[in-house]
């Protein structure tokens, strides 16, 4: 079990490196001063400001969002018993994207008071509600007589996503050049919105989601045998479906709302864990959280340093860094097992 130390090493490295030069010893002093171990006179105020108000929140946000997306992906794959399931399948991502596009392009239609009250939070709130609404519609379409059909939900998710794409297309058509460009950047994702309030909101939501997911591990293992089998093993399948959807909705919704669309992590982090440690959800869920968080923090480290003083959208990097990793694992596993 080397995963823990690797995750810690990535986090420390991500704190030590950035566009703004801060010597590693200074990083330690500043962090020490933060918890009262080092006298505040020994540190440079500006370096401390950069570390505390920019870099630390960013690393924490990356860890939370990466963990949330990866666990949501693992839950979806378990629920749909389908290896290509990703957190976007239940419509959260596309619903959030449509709402974000609406705010970016038609932000002027919102009442001035609402815009003033919410400020920078208008887009995240709208995106979260858009994502939640889309997921609830998908769930509603797929539920009859109190039973949710996973198969119908899959198709309803695709239908709602297509509808949202049409809406985004229409908004893109009436958008100005600048709005289009903002929309493009939003769909590529960024952790640039990180500040302490965002970390608090996202961290709180995703922590709750992770805690709830622990109790889903055993039922999901039973579900792998089939819905009827799970029922006969004593699992309340409908209740489990409701909780899985709620957890995925919360984790993905809050991530997309504040960071835009960050692809790949939710799909591939759980698969990497399955290839390394097997499909038992009791291991899969926490390990996916750890790997997802680590991958996203690493990707963001590259995103904010490789073209400094500018920064690359993180969606480009999650795929660029994660895909080779995934392909190597697939090749190594090829022939050894038939599970996937």
């Amino acid at each position, binding site marked *: 079990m080397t995963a823990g130390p690797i995750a810690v090493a990535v986090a420390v490295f991500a704190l030590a490196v*950035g*566009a*703004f*030069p801060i*010597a590693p010893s200074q990083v330690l002093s500043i962090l020490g001063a933060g918890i009262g171990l080092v006298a505040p006179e*020994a540190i*440079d105020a*500006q370096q401390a*400001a*950069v570390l505390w*108000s*920019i*870099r630390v929140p960013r690393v924490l946000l990356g860890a939370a969002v990466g963990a949330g997306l990866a666990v949501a992906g693992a839950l979806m794959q378990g629920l749909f018993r389908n290896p290509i399931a990703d957190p976007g399948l239940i419509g959260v991502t596309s619903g959030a994207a449509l709402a974000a596009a609406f705010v970016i392009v038609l932000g002027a239609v919102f009442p001035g008071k609402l815009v003033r009250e919410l*400020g*920078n939070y208008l887009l995240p709130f709208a995106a979260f509600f858009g994502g939640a609404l889309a997921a609830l519609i998908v769930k509603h379409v797929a539920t009859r007589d109190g039973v949710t059909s996973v198969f119908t939900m899959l198709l309803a998710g695709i239908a709602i996503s297509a509808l949202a794409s049409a809406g985004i297309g229409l908004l893109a058509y009436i*958008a*100005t*050049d*600048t709005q289009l*460009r*903002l929309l493009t*950047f939003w769909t590529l994702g*960024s952790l*640039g*919105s*990180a*500040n302490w309030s965002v970390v608090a909101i996202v961290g709180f939501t995703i922590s709750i989601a992770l805690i709830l997911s622990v109790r889903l591990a055993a039922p999901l293992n039973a579900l792998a045998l089939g819905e009827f089998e799970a029922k006969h093993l004593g699992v309340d399948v409908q209740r489990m479906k409701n909780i899985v959807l709620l957890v995925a909705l919360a984790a993905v919704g809050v991530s997309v709302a504040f960071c835009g669309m960050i692809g790949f992590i939710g799909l591939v982090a759980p698969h990497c864990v399955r290839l390394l440690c097997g499909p038992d959800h009791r291991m899969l869920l926490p390990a996916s959280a750890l790997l997802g968080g680590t991958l996203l923090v690493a990707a963001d480290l590259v995103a*904010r340093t490789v*073209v*400094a*003083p*500018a*920064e690359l*959208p993180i969606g480009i990097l999650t795929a660029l860094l994660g895909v080779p990793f995934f392909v190597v694992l697939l090749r190594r596993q090829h022939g050894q097992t038939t599970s996937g």
Partner: protein
Amino acid sequence: MNLRDSYDDRFRGVRKGRRMRFAFGALIFGLALLGVASAQAPRVVSVGGSLTEIVYALGAEKQLVAVDTTSLYPDAALKLPKVGYARQLSAEGVLALRPTLILATSEAGPPNALEQLRATGVKIESTSAEHSFDELRNKVKVVAAAVGMPDAGRALETKLVADIAEASRWIAAQPSRPRVLFILSHSGAAQVSGDGTAADAMIKLAGGVNAVSGFKGYKPLTAEAAIGANPDVILTTTQGVAAIGGIDKLLSQPGLGLTAAGKARRVLDMEALYLLGFGPRLPQAVRELAKRMRDPQTAVATTARTSPSPAP
């Protein structure tokens, strides 16, 4: 590289200074004074092509340490570090340049990055992104005050006012009001400029009529609507002509060849930032556009020009 070296030097200086504090108290006082002086040497990051041009026009380019991706003029600006796209600034990336002042338009963002920059004590001078001569004057005032060169600012403003007045007099004396269609890009249907765009403002300043109106921003134009708009002159950017592969390719787009401009091959191209930037070259650009769109000789394009000509 040089920049980074100098940061490291400074840190080394600070650390060394700390180590000597107990032994050389008096010396530290001197070093500290030096530190204050070097911290106050202005370091300006300009986020906006027109703002960067104004900094150069004022002769304040020594203070400039970085620009955004829209700062394409003058050539010297291309050699400075780039902080990326104005709406996607990275707070830490910008701070790493140790700026004392950020010149920005209202387009700069995202808001969180600007807040973080303000929170660390960097001054941000923001101007509107409106396309008008008055806004250009305002930008000159703001930038000149911010870089501490109000006299140069007043001189530049006076010159700009005189130049635009001269251009306006020339334009007012012209009998013709050509219908101009501005084409932004050529992927699929031509994207043309409606109300409120920089191109629309330029066409009006040059005494022309925007061939398409009644909608805001840039929109794709169908072939039939292009013929209906029937422009006398097609205006585009040098970059646009290069992207599509020449004037012939442009005119072979559905509809464009059948307009009055297309039949007479009256296609004008000007460098994008020069034409649409609303920077200190505005009077010159207005004058050039006004002349070229009325001159049957120069308006018949044969080759794509690569750089704007100096003042006529």
